[in-house]
């Protein structure tokens, strides 16, 4: 499973970002937490990858891993991360730090807690800019005001001196984006950029991000549990479960021909505005797997309704992430491809389309992993 690369890869050139068998493990008192366990993908500039999964599936950890924000003392990291020809896992922390914020930047979930409450928005943007550019405070301030204007903050020359708590949620997220863009990064990772916002603001932010990506021609990774967001932005989609990638492909593939039962579950629980309001949401039952005691075999099998159709392999053998179809679509499932496609077309799709998806809830209301686990890897 080493050669998992972008579905759209040009085999001659090295992709802009490439992960190879990335593993991030945290030894704890209770056992080894395998937050990310063998993740591989690649991404080109100007393209967008959506990483989807429940809380605790390892999506945030992998993005932090790319940025090199983990405690070297208590995290075991292996594999390779290539950014524009430079390997990051083996690079010195100082090298990675120099890239952070400059060539790769991150937009965090919940900008209220992600911004320092004691410093003004301006100070925080200026700081981000000046750490990588030797400019005067005045120049940096001008830059910050420009950025704020760029992300649509009215009266940026005044608001630049406000504190984060003086901003509304949407404005804060815009400021956060401005901060991430301060050094024109080539790789932008957005971790649940819209989760904390209400629906109308969500749309504005997503618009903004799409515009900016095009303008800066950066590679964008959107991490979310909301397939809707992915559908809006992503070129490729990667579904994570229990620290592993279980389905990976072009966005159209994933939405039209998903082959993993977990992906079906995700789609089933996605509210669809384009469908008539007839049925209630279809939640995924059970709880996400413990990252310490990952279920044997296919880690999804305890929740999988089809584990009976794998001939008993589901709880003994870890399935490989194998190609299916021709467009680079890969799935990690014991069921043969034709069986999966059959189930999708005959059993699942009709249910989703026919009865499907009015909902009040989204996946955030799914039974989620205990907060404890996600905190432990942070």
């Amino acid at each position: 499973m080493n050669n998992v690369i972008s579905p759209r890869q040009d085999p001659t050139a090295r992709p802009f970002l490439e992960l190879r068998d990335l593993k991030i493990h945290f030894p704890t008192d209770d056992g080894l937490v395998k937050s990310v366990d063998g993740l591989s993908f690649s991404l080109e500039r100007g393209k967008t990858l959506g990483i989807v999964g429940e809380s605790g599936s390892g999506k945030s950890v992998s993005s932090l891993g790319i940025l090199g924000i983990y405690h070297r003392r208590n995290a075991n990291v292996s594999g390779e991360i290539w950014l524009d020809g430079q390997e990051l896992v083996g690079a010195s922390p100082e090298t990675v730090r120099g890239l952070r914020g400059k060539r790769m930047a991150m937009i965090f979930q919940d900008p209220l807690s992600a911004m320092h409450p004691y410093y003004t928005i301006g100070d925080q943007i200026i700081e981000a800019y000046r750490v990588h550019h030797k400019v005067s405070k005045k120049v940096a301030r001008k830059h910050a005001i420009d950025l704020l204007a760029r992300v649509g903050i009215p009266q940026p020359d005044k608001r630049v001196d406000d504190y984060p708590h003086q901003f509304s949620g949407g404005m804060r997220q815009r400021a956060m984006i401005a901060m991430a863009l301060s050094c024109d990064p080539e790789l932008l990772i957005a971790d649940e950029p819209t989760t904390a916002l209400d629906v109308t603001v969500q749309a504005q932010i997503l618009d903004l991000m799409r515009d900016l990506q095009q303008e800066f021609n950066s590679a964008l990774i959107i991490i979310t549990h909301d397939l809707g967001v992915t559908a809006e932005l992503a070129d490729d989609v990667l579904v994570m479960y229990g620290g592993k990638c279980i389905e990976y492909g072009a966005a159209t593939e994933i939405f039209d021909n998903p082959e993993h039962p977990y992906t079906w579950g995700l789609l089933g629980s996605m509210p669809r505005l384009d469908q008539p309001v007839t049925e209630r949401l279809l939640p995924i039952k059970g709880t996400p797997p413990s990252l310490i005691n990952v279920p044997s075999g296919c880690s999804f099998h305890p929740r999988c309704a089809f584990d009976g159709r794998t001939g008993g392999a589901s709880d003994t053998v870890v399935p490989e992430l194998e190609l299916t179809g021709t467009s680079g679509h890969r799935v990690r499932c014991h069921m043969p491809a034709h069986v999966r496609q059959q189930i999708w077309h005959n059993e699942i799709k009709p249910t989703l389309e026919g009865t499907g998806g009015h909902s009040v809830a989204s996946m955030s209301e799914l039974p989620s992993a205990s907060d404890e686990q996600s905190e432990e890897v942070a």
Partner: protein
Amino acid sequence: MATRTDTSAPEGIKAPAKAIEGRSLGRIAWTRLKRDKAAMAGGITVILLILMAVFAPLIVGWLGHPPNEFHQDNSLLAAELGGLPRGDFLFFESSGISGDFLFGLEPQNGRDLFSEIVYGARVSLLIAFLATLVSVVIGSALGVIAGFFGGLADTVISFLMNVFLAFPLLLFAIALVGVLPDTAFGLSGNSLRIALLIFIIGFFNWPYIARIVRGQTLSLREREFVDAARSLGARGPYIIVKEMLPNLVAPILVYATLLIPTNILFEAALSFLGVGVQRQVVGEPGVTWGGLLSDAARNSVVHFMFFPGMAIFITVLAFNLFGDGLRDALDPKSKR
């Protein structure tokens, strides 16, 4: 569509075959606590100290001499040196430490320091435990009232807490012990003193418990199950007792455990300053570690300071270790 909720629901997801065995908070905490060596050491020490206090007469009968017995024989105390114990042990000069007197003798009157230390645990632990109980009762009651009812009750109680925190507590406690009458509530002598100390120490520490309980109550009040109970027509007292209290037990337990060592130090401080329990022969000897230290301060004989001081230190440390461990076990967020 009933089948949707079945395990064979076509959306391809089923409930876990086996529900994970529900573990009570107590069990989880106990498992965690067992793994924490320092906390266990503290806990075991606490238990030993309690046993020592309870069985003081037996221990002293076995390893020492009655705590009030004078040993002024010239072979033990050097009368010509003003009653300094004879015999050195390590750096404990003139301590009189021997197989017969494990911690040596008190200068001048030759009481067995070991027995005094053992008996000292009684007063110390009794007062610390009961005073904590007083704090917990007052603090929980006022904390719940402030947190649950809010409004005027909260304003008044919060103000009271601030007033109490603004008082120079030690000063007040000392003054109160000094000012109060000799006989009251049908008690007199040391029983009255102990009762007073318990009340005073307990009374001055309630804001610490109240603050925690108030905060917890405030957050619990917003939780669904309380709303649920209320929407079902449950009234305040019922909600407090049935819904709130069970959820408050853990934090109260933790902070009570951490209050005990504070109270031990408080009692010792009062005794050190001479307003604690007084030595008696009627009934209990009323030895206090703080009192011994204060006597020792006048003599500059090192063993006389060392053992009572270490007794306080070890006891307080044991409770602190145990309390810290308990907090970590019950409240994983504070973990390490």
